[in-house]
């Protein structure tokens, strides 16, 4: 340990903190009022595993299992029927509004941004995991979301058969283009594992990878417009 580190260590022993509260009674009172959410999650995982095993056991059902698409931190899954989901107004349900600098600090990854003239001043964050910007492009509002490509799967999309899912490439990097019917967007916070109630998405979506980021554009854009915008985001 260097001299500076030793002095800091000594300093820590001399710090005066406010009296430490006993939070246990309030914590216990709060958790008594809640159901056990992980049991629902565990049940959901168990049911999904059973469904997967059953589907794999039936040859004609294998095609439905192939309708999974993984890209970075995102998964797109085809389903017959969408789950109950909330409608989302443009900047609502995106998370907490913060400055661009704060968003960079929270995600701890270099964010990809549009060219200077279209650069947003404000970002919306969920935990320290998902950053979203509201952009204007091609005369419409577009949402740009960014999250870590690695670690646990953070974002899950469910799409009905009326939504087409096709591969796309942005500057040579792999991507997915979702167009057509509505789909839902679910989010798992990497800190707490909380699952938000899914959001119903009516616009088209482009997902692609850049560095350690998975990026997502959502809006009423054509595929060509979305790809053009995506290429400008660096």
């Amino acid at each position: 340990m260097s001299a500076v580190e030793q002095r800091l260590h000594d300093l820590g022993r001399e710090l005066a903190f406010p009296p430490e509260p006993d939070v246990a009674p309030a914590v216990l009172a709060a958790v008594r009022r809640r159901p056990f959410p992980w049991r629902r999650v565990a049940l959901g995982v168990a049911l999904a595993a059973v469904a997967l095993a059953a589907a794999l056991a039936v040859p004609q059902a294998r095609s439905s299992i192939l309708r999974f698409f993984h890209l970075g931190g995102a998964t797109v899954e085809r389903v017959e029927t969408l789950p109950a989901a909330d409608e989302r107004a443009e900047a609502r349900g995106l998370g907490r509004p913060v400055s661009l600098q704060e968003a960079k600090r929270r995600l701890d990854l270099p964010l990809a941004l549009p060219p200077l003239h279209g650069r947003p001043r404000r970002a919306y964050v969920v935990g320290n995991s998902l950053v979203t910007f509201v952009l204007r492009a091609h005369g419409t509002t577009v949402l740009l979301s960014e999250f870590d490509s690695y670690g646990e799967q953070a974002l899950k999309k469910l799409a009905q058969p009326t939504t087409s899912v096709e591969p796309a490439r942005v500057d040579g990097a792999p991507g997915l283009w979702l167009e057509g019917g509505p789909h839902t967007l679910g989010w798992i916070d990497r800190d707490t594992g909380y699952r938000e109630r899914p959001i119903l998405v009516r616009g088209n979506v482009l997902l692609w990878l850049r560095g350690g980021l998975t990026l997502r554009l959502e809006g009423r854009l054509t595929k060509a417009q979305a790809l053009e915008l995506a290429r400008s985001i660096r």
Partner: protein
Amino acid sequence: MVDRPLDEAELVERARRGDLGAWETLVRTHQGIAFRTAYVIARNAGDAEEAAQDGFVKAYCALGRFRRGAELRPWLLRIVANEARNRRRSAARRDRLALLAAAEVRPGDAVPSPEAAVVAHESQERMLAAVEALGEEQRDAVVCRYLLGLSEEETAAALGVRRGTVKSRLSRALARLRENLEAEG
């Protein structure tokens, strides 16, 4: 037969199964460091208490996703610190860290002469001022790692960054503090 105390992994397993007594034991074990971590981030005692409380509630609800065999403390600190960051006030409204009064000697410490105690206290005051003068990112890293005594992994969890980021922030901060010390002579 004497009941042996349950280890942390067993307490976590019991809490997963809905044993609130086990969760209470874990909360009481970690609430001190959770509160102090929340305090150095939020810099307000009321906000830190709220952050610790809400953090423990969220952690309980998320226990199903806690990786078996992993260390509980970094995971808890990540959740509590995140709550604290969401309550962080503007710089002007934050409490500043303070030292114990010079007369307060911790148990086990050698008792210095009054003159030596004053000199040591002034030196610590200067060191604390130098830490507080660091940029926010470096200061938080130094406070968590050295003043709170968190491990590198816990510091990274508390700050919501990678370990490599903690290392580089600490390295830059120590260089800056070393310059201050040398100038001080």
